């Protein structure tokens, strides 16, 4: 018998409930609004009063309305069919809702219960299994989707029976397991898991060993993100956060992409589900949507479900990671989630921390980032969740609580800069401020030297140094004037401009330039560094500027041309002619 209660207070989506019977922190409840059931979550209990955040609009709710507690926390349903789906923050399937407008209290099943999946058993009768062990496999699109021992199972089990190869719905009992105490338990293709708890059914979580290629030079070459790593992208509005994130989603080298649109624009979600079904995954040649799940709580959807949306997305990633897959979670933006926390904390009249955010903000953020990572599964296979979040700092000022808290938790920092965006130098990632801690990892260094080339790290650091020196030279030129500095300052400055225009900048809307695979990144870095290695003797700064502008133009055209195409080779020849003619 579940606990019940009555509404005694309402402020926007914070409702106070007088309870009868025990209630748990984070327990869910339904509030009955004239027959419509509104889902809510307990966020504070004080005596007989529980404060609950309602995941829907509370318009029309009255004191005295009935509340029924559900005895469980917010859970997601895990099983085949999650990919290609569009869910709201509570995992309701948005595609099966009929009305144009979202209806309060309309909850839809996240999984198609009628669809047949062709199941192939992996485990055999008599096998000893534990939580997250693979029992069988279905093909979800092209991905091998493992059916696992539910994560909530504790202790050892023996496979009593397993169903034969064949076509089944998700609710079919595919195996019967016997527990240590001799109890038989049925296992279907689905299971449930509370979103706020990390799935830890794996052997261990080692340090990341390799990088996740994104096809973007500013990331892969300059600040690579590890597979199973964490990163974040702060930036004022209009600096290209979303374009950058969509680029990563399109090109990221991962098996599964989960995009959490958290309190952002609905049209951005529309862009994903309009374009992704048409776009081809450059790594597998399959449609992008086949590997993508969208969780959307857009900015006009109920605020309380915003927090749920990032947790729902993370749980789905962890589920696929347990199958030995490489997952990429993109959350845009974690600031909106933090703001949702702030709104609730404010309504509960808690003492505020900096900028009125709750004081435990930093702990919540780092706890969430810690759920990413590479894991070694029970059977020795590896899986990974890479997490990249965006942050929308108020006023573009990075000294604000969300950015600062995230900086402590994430290992890669891609700072978008207003100034670069104003000059249309996209992606507007600041090359000096940004960093990847992974470049310092010996494992990652070894990986890069092995897969790209020996001496790669040194080259990258050299290029970064040229940019830094160029910035210094530019400052001097601005202070002392073109004539007030030695010629070498101009040369240093233009070498950094060369790197900026050819390697850092990348046209996300050009079909060729948008995706630059690692071998091509290697070629371009070497080409540019070779030029930077040369000592030029210009007579005046005008010649220097003209020469570099011409070179930048040729190299840009190369970026726009398919590699190994005739065009590409022609530009390459033009470039070497130009360099030679200068020598003479």
């Amino acid at each position, binding site marked *: 018998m579940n606990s019940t209660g009555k509404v*005694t207070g309402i402020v926007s989506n914070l409702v106070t409930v007088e309870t009868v019977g025990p209630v748990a922190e984070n327990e869910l409840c339904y509030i009955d609004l004239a027959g419509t059931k509104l889902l809510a979550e307990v966020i504070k209990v004080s005596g007989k009063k529980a404060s609950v955040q309602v995941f829907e609009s509370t318009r029309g709710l009255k004191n005295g309305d009935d509340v029924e507690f559900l005895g469980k926390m917010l859970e997601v349903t895990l099983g085949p069919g999650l990919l290609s789906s*569009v869910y709201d923050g509570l995992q309701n399937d948005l595609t099966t809702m009929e009305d144009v407008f979202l209806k309060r209290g309309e909850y839809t099943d996240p999984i198609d219960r009628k669809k047949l999946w062709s199941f192939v058993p992996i485990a055999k009768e008599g096998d000893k299994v534990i939580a997250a062990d693979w029992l069988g496999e279905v093909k979800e699109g092209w991905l091998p989707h493992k059916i696992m021992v539910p994560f909530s199972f504790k202790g050892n089990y023996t496979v009593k029976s397993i169903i034969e190869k064949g076509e089944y719905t998700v609710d079919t009992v595919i195996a019967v397991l016997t527990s240590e105490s001799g109890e038989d338990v049925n296992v279907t293709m689905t299971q449930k898991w509370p979103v706020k708890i990390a799935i830890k059914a794996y052997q261990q979580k080692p340090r990341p060993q390799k990088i996740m290629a994104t096809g973007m030079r500013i990331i892969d070459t300059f600040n690579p993100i590890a597979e199973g790593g964490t990163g974040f992208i702060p930036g004022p509005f209009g600096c290209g956060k979303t374009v950058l994130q969509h680029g990563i989603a399109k090109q990221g080298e991962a098996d599964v992409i989960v995009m959490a649109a958290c309190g952002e624009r*609905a049209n951005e979600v529309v862009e994903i589900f309009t374009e992704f079904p048409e776009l081809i995954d450059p790594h597998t040649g399959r449609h992008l949507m086949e590997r993508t799940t969208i969780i959307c709580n857009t900015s006009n959807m109920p605020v309380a479900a915003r927090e749920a949306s990032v947790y729902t997305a993370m749980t789905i990633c962890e589920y696929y990671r347990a199958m030995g897959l490489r997952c990429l979670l993109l959350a845009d933006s974690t600031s909106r989630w933090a703001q949702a926390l702030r709104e609730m904390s404010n309504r509960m009249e808690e003492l*505020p921390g900096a900028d009125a955010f709750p004081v435990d903000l930093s702990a919540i953020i780092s706890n969430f980032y810690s759920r990413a990572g590479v894991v070694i599964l029970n059977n020795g296979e590896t899986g990974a969740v890479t997490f990249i979040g965006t942050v929308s700092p108020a006023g573009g000022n990075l000294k604000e609580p969300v950015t600062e808290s995230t900086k402590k938790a994430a290992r890669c920092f891609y700072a978008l800069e207003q100034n670069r965006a104003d*000059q249309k130098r996209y992606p507007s990632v600041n090359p000096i401020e940004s960093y990847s801690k992974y470049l310092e990892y010996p494992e990652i260094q070894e990986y890069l030297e092995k897969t790209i080339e020996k001496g790669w790290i040194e080259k990258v650091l050299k290029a970064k140094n040229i940019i830094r020196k160029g910035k210094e030279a530019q400052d001097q030129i601005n202070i002392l004037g073109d004539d007030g500095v030695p010629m070498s300052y101009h040369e240093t400055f233009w070498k950094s401009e060369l790197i900026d225009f050819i390697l850092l900048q990348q046209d996300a809307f050009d079909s060729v330039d948008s995706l630059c695979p690692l071998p091509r990144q290697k070629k371009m870095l070497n080409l540019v560094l070779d030029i930077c290695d040369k000592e030029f003797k210009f007579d005046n700064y005008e010649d220097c500027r003209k020469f570099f502008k011409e070179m*930048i133009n040729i190299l840009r055209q190369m970026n726009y041309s398919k590699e190994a195409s005739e065009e590409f080779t022609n530009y390459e020849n033009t470039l070497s002619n130009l360099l030679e003619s200068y020598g003479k």
Partner: protein
Amino acid sequence: MANKAYQRVYTQLEAITKATVSLNCKGISNDELAIVNGKLSQVVKTKGDTVTLQVFAGTEGIPTNAEVRFLGAPPTLNVSDQLSGRFFNAYGQAIDGGPEVEGEERQIGGPSVNPYKRRQPSELIPTGIAGIDLNNTLVSGQKIPFFADPDQPYNQVMADVALRADVDKIILGGMGLSNDDYLFFKHKFENAGALSKIVSFVNTTEEPPVERLLIPDMALTAAEYFAVDKNEKVLVLLTDMTLYADALSIVSNRMDQIPSKDSMPGSLYSDLAKIYEKAVQLPTGGSITIIAVTTLNEGDITHAIPDNTGYITEGQLFLRADSDSGKVIIDPFRSLSRLKQLVQGKKTREDHSQVMNASVRLYADAQNAKTKLENGFDLSDYDLRCLDYAKEYATRLLSIDVNITINEMLDTAWELFSKYFSKAETGIKQVFIDKYWKN
């Protein structure tokens, strides 16, 4: 507001602030309307038997024994084709002397469109202004504000844009509009002979500020009626959203909420998003496009109101007085249309996006040259060419008084490129140079 059959009447107020009153009563629903001493109010908080009401017109003169009548429902608007050509106040009551509108009574501030039912915006809205069409192309279903200092002619530009745009309905939501500006809009629409496709909801500076909070929801309820029920293309003009946000902060302050940045309520982002996200392209062809105005304090976009707005809207159009050309221009650096790539080069000429980027990049070079000049350094030949280019670019393309077609804008840009620069200096893709360079 019409009288309802069942009404509960109370006559004992427990507390009064400048914007709210509280009283003890039972069975009251959240968001419900009430009349307090003849003034319209709305339930914003209940705690036990204490209900707090926000009084839109302010609480001046309300006594503790005021009569409070609950109306049993949130604010509504009667929707039908009779809305066309009419002027209303914040409560949806006619202020043009005409009859009250008959039609279906709808709650304002209704639910959001299921994001999956949306379609990707893809229809260009040409305005003739190159600062918009060339650099920051507008698309139907988009939401975009003008960021402007109070002394700039934002209402004039907005009216021009509205009248040139090819839409079925224009809905004006005026918040804290001065009486002069209200009459400006009225006359401008009348003179253009467009009155029949315009619906206006107006709160002027003469009226209480908290009333403004109803304006966007009223305007958007009307917009949804025409876009969803009638499949029409609707353009909603909201001016000035800064005054709307100020009203929000007044109410939250009176309710003792902890303010966040710039003494704005912590929910400012959600409050603004609820309005702007009503912009939509529907699968049935109807659409709601929102063009708003957010006034700035000396161009400061880091203030909480423009800052939150920028994160919600799909770009912003930044008005600035340009000293080189002596005109008000649409600043190419701070302005942005996030949806422009959905139409640029697709609904417009193939070279659009490259021409736009090159022209802005060269304009940025001119700004650097200007800095050098101000610091007293000699300018190079390139710097001088950039400066000349910038002046002509601002006059012929960025100025808000331009009214030409997009192809004319592109041709003008090419003309400026070849007049001031070499081909390599523009950095444009070779194929376009070959095709469009003006010798």
